[in-house]
């Protein structure tokens, strides 16, 4: 994340996205979906963005894919700011470099067309006219790159004839058709069956290793993020709260929310002799993320945080830059209390705080 020798291929700099929505009585409200997010994607590196639904991770992916124009902030492709004017030519250059893979492989392929057509269309749009033979070769090599071999078995199939895993491979092959430098995966495995998810993660990993793609992996599953990525960014209520190398972030969270997320995640390799009541015992009341129409002042996690201090309620926490390329937006670092996070049983502390408040 801090490697300055490699230039980022795609960069978001202090990007925010606000949506206007009409409420029930016709008044407009503003949803602050993403606020002040900066992110750098480097060639051959995978960054995972983890967070709950509503944390802004999908909005972030769509900002990076330029489905949305940022409200403020800037997106840079290979160092050059991406213009606000939507000129067709620059659009096309951008899409050639940055491709988005959706969550639902069932909805992202044209069901009326065979695999061949789905891929050829992407090739034709981005490479212009090609001889029949050259096009056939390209389609076959794309399918090989996503391990759909022999390609002839798949070319003439319709999407509904493929399994979920095969479909997602075709979606990735189509993204690769334009030879992008960045892949944005928005929960690319969450709709696939458990037994084939790993194949998909391994495929993304080999694309990164062998072709030097920069990959953004958006997920709510921390264990899969740890399996695939180099760095993890944690989002909460539209903001980034912590980032750093994956193992450090997961084994030693420096933000109370990260700690809550890690504690809540199932770990199949937790010692199963651990008492079930001990695992689930004190997680009765964990609160919920705030509304993004009227987010809390100060730190957005303060209404749930067991460490919340007066300043957390009033003032946004400063970024604490830590060793090993890590940072966390939390006041605990400022007041020298970050040590307390390490041993804190977060689910238990939050449950205690919130149930005392309701009492």
């Amino acid at each position, binding site marked *: 994340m801090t490697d300055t020798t490699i230039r980022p291929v795609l960069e978001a700099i202090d990007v925010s996205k606000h949506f206007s929505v009409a409420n029930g009585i016709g008044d407009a409200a503003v949803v602050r979906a993403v606020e002040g997010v900066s992110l750098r994607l480097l060639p051959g590196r995978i960054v995972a963005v983890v967070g709950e*639904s509503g944390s802004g991770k999908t909005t972030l992916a769509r900002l990076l894919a330029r489905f949305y124009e940022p409200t403020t902030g800037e997106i840079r492709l290979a160092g050059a700011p991406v213009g606000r004017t939507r000129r067709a030519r620059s659009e096309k250059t951008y899409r050639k470099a940055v491709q988005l893979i959706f969550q639902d492989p069932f909805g992202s392929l044209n069901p009326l067309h065979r695999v061949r057509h789905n891929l050829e269309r992407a090739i034709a749009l981005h490479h212009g006219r090609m001889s029949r033979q050259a096009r056939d070769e390209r389609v076959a090599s794309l399918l090989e790159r996503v391990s759909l071999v022999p390609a002839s078995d798949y070319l003439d199939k319709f999407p509904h004839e493929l399994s*979920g895993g095969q479909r997602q491979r075709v979606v990735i092959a189509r993204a690769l058709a334009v030879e992008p430098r960045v892949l944005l995966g928005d929960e690319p495995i969450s709709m696939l069956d*458990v037994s084939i998810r790993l194949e998909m993660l391994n495929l993304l990993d080999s694309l990164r290793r062998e072709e030097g793609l920069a990959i953004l992996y958006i997920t709510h599953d921390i264990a899969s993020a740890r399996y695939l990525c180099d760095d993890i960014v944690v989002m909460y209520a539209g903001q980034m709260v912590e980032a750093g190398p994956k193992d450090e972030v997961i084994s030693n969270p420096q933000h109370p929310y990260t700690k809550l997320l890690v504690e809540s995640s199932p*770990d*199949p*390799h937790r010692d*199963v002799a651990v008492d*079930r009541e001990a695992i689930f015992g004190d997680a009765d009341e964990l609160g919920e993320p705030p509304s993004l129409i009227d987010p809390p002042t100060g730190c957005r996690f303060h209404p749930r945080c067991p460490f919340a201090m007066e300043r957390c309620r009033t003032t946004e926490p400063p970024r604490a830059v830590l060793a090993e390329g890590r940072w966390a937006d939390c006041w605990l670092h400022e007041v020298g209390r970050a040590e307390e996070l390490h041993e804190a049983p977060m*689910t238990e502390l939050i449950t205690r705080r919130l149930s005392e408040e309701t009492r």
Partner: protein
Amino acid sequence: MTTTALTARNDAARPVGSDTVLDVDGLCVEYAGAGEPVRACTDVTFALRRGEILGIVGESGSGKSTLITALTRLQRPPAVTTAGRVLFHPQDGEEPVDLVRLTPRKLRALRWTSLSIVLQSAMDALNPVMRLGAQFVDALREHDRSMSHTAAWEEARRLLGLVGISADRARSYPHELSGGMRQRATIALALACRPELVVMDEPTTAVDVVMQRQILAQVLRLRREFGFAVVFVTHDLSLLLELADRIAVMYAGRIVELASATDVYRTPMHPYTRGLRDSFPPLHAPVTRLEGIPGSPPDLRALPSGCPFADRCPAVMERCRTELPLLEPHGGRSVACHLHDEGIRP
């Protein structure tokens, strides 16, 4: 209480005794279509002890949802239960009843009071145009005619409190609640009439991990207080390893392994169970390259004559291609795999 004519094969999967609340034997469910009927559940046999949490895990198409709609008699055509029985043993020592053959009227009397269900999508399970509390009042008064409206409303407020929803929310409509709150409300609703058995169909799949942890913590606490048994269906084995007492692993419509959560994790006997366990990357343990399970599940319309897992199995043998392995007891657990046949060492 005990049923007659148990074959030896069924003993381990169904240790039938006075502490059994549900006893499923040889259940088969088919989907009748234009052509050959498709068998989505075949010969499913297990017993559920009182107060136990039995996890049922499987991928899409494994038959887990078909199984629970058959168990709870919520199935709709074209699904038909073609064989087997589902014996429910009431706590008060009354004669067991076969849910498969029960008349709709008697079934209706059992619902909520003895057997209830929590569905994946809480939005669909709650009536969108009724206040939350009114839906509790409905269920409560339907099964206890002597309960006054005021008392039922008071009970609704108390039940919501059990899952951490403040009592004044009883006056809210479902759309005014967050997804996590709605799901907790359906759990409270399922418990309203103190059932002995709650079937939960992916109750936390639509919520985030933090809410999932909270919901499961509440389910465990409520189970301690009320003592109901749970059939918990999910595709997430990692969750069941932490939550369930025993786990039934389904593949292509059959239970292929049934064992305690500890045994499933430490010593899975079926190669599919092992593969599934190894499909979850660890959260803290060192990361090694994992492969998942190559291939995809078989088409239920064209099942092979042998083991349905044979094509994906790393330990496939000659006989797996021709002979279907049945669920056999091995100590306190059961597995359907030729690797564990007499005379063959795994």
